[in-house]
């Protein structure tokens, strides 16, 4: 095994890890406030990808406009889901909303399946994005480089928003204690919608990255990456932004190194490895790797 092979696997890990990290932020925000595993989050990603595909098929529009419109569509779908499937159930138990999110996930998948077909579709980015560059011993496409920069920028902006603005402060308060925040005069519904807006917008971006990487898309494509992103959020310590990002990168790199470096007889266990890793981490650090000594929130 050469070091360049190791490096290229590491790069692959970073690529997939950045997707997990971005999706995990959305999961983590929603979970932090509502204690809801939003299974539909992965399917919002699919919605975003399909709207990008449809808008690209029209032709004529520049890519940045397409992405912005698609982000708006994803956000619209996400906010509608929150309004009609989660808000009526706010007062009931955690399991109820969990089931509701499963049902929403099923609805989104099947609607996409009905509008487009259940078959896989090719997804091609414009050529100036897929051009390859050689950086040292690893090869990266323009898209990858933009992705890394974008992830970095998104993280900086988000952490400023969450640390410095009053909206971010309200979000942290809600995540800490929803009832007390309401008593302090915070408009909780606004904060929750805001969490969905940020999460769904990021999911659309992550969908673009994922589709650009795999080059094919299908109606079910978002579900398993979404699940893994939730694992990433749990790994890093759920409810914290930096934890979600770190968890995403750790999971992505671990998965790719597992797939690239282990003997070929056990590499098909790549998907299973993610969950085994999760169980092992939970065994020793129930609050996640960066979860600290915070009390075990129920």
């Amino acid at each position, binding site marked *: 095994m050469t070091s360049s092979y190791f490096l290229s696997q590491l790069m692959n890990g970073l690529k997939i890890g950045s997707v997990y990290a971005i999706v995990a932020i959305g999961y983590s925000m929603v979970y932090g406030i509502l204690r809801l595993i939003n299974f539909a989050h992965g399917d919002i990603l699919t919605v975003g990808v399909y709207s990008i595909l449809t808008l690209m098929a029209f032709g004529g529009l520049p890519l940045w406009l397409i992405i912005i419109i698609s982000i708006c569509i994803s956000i619209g779908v996400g906010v509608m889901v929150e309004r009609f499937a989660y808000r009526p159930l706010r007062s009931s138990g955690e399991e109820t909303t969990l089931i509701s999110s499963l049902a929403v996930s099923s609805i989104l998948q099947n609607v996409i399946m009905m509008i487009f077909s259940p078959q896989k579709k090719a997804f091609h980015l414009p050529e100036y994005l897929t051009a390859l560059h050689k950086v040292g011993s690893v090869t990266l496409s323009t898209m990858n480089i933009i992705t890394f920069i974008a992830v970095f920028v998104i993280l900086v902006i988000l952490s400023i928003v969450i640390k410095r603005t009053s909206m971010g402060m309200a979000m942290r308060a809600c995540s800490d204690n929803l009832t007390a925040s309401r008593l302090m005069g915070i408009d909780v519904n606004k904060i929750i919608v805001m969490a969905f807006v940020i999460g769904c917008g990021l999911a659309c971006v992550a969908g673009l990255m994922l589709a650009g990487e795999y080059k094919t898309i299908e109606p079910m494509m978002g579900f398993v990456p979404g699940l893994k992103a939730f694992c990433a959020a749990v790994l890093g310590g759920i409810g914290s932004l930096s934890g979600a990002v770190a968890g995403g990168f750790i999971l992505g790199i671990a998965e790719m190194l597992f797939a690239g470096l282990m003997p070929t007889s056990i590499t098909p266990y790549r998907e299973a490895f993610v969950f085994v890793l999760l169980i092992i981490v939970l*065994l020793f650090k129930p609050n996640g790797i960066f979860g600290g000594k915070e009390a075990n929130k129920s």
Partner: protein
Amino acid sequence: MRTTTFKDCNILRLLVFVILPLCAIVYGASHPSGYYAGLINLAGIYIILVASLNLVNGFSGMFSMGHAAFMAIGAYISAFFTLTPAQKMASTPGLPEWLINANLPFVVALIIGGACAVVVALIIGYPVLRFKGHYLSIVTLGLIVIVRAVLDNEGEYTNGARGITGLPPKSNTVVIFIIMAIVLYFLFRLIRSQYGRGLIAMRDDDVAAQTLGINLASKKLSAFCISAFITGMAGGLFGHMQSVISGKFYYFDLSFRVVQTSIIGGMFSLSGAVPGGIIMAYLPEVLAPLETGVKLFGHQLPEMYGASNLIMAIILILIIIFRRQGLMGEHEFIVESMFSKDTYTSLFKKEEYLNIGRAFRDLFTGKWRKSKKALPEDIDNTPPVV
């Protein structure tokens, strides 16, 4: 005077909850090739599955979403004991010598399958059940992925993604419904026992339950294992009903479908499994024509892939918004009627026949409306205060 409602008529209970289902079962058993009759087996298996899932999700306050993994384990392990040695040599040559030659009665094979599911449940449950919240949900979902990966990649033992075909069709209507009756009776006695009340106490308030001397960890783990055992058996039944098993049948789809069934029927009651299972077995088949395009009121509808799943999901959301506790809520009258002595002795009591008449009379005279306000029974029976 106390008014009589139809709930008090044991004969009606006998008719609706025992004789009617028995007729349906006998009809299903005598028409094994009939399409809708064959679905009754599926309904029976769903009832077993949902009852066992309700023990965990409804009565113990945990939330497992990965019961399909236990089904898969039960299906594969039980298949190892019912296939002929020649079939096993062809599809699963990696098995040890004694297992290839092993051939056990169907029920024993099912029990072994269930026991293996319990072993996995112990391994998964021990680290995870100590935590509150959603950890169990996500880990059991992960378990489905892990089990699928093992089934698809250990070709020596499982024939890989192709799956195992040609399982003997041993799970007929009679076997399924006898097992269903035993499971329902066992679970019904269990939740009415001290153990079951402990579970419910734990669900409602774990701290208070702990102060009353309930060992939360062992209680959670044991309930999870009982549920896994029954689910493993149901998985074996399912596999032998379809006669084909493969990792892809026991994936998210099936797991979510079982959870969905449990929610529709009502996860806080065993009885909920019965209407839930029947609806879930028949509704997709009724909706299936939508997927291939169907003529409705003279209009030719286009082909819509995923239409039946979509409608099921919408029904699910409507149910949890408008009837959160499911169809049955916390009522147990279906299972109660099935296993209560009064139901069966009612045929020989004159009083019971009179009750039906009274119920009809009270229905038409509308007395039941007044009785709700006055609660005459309570007032009459209270001893006078001196």
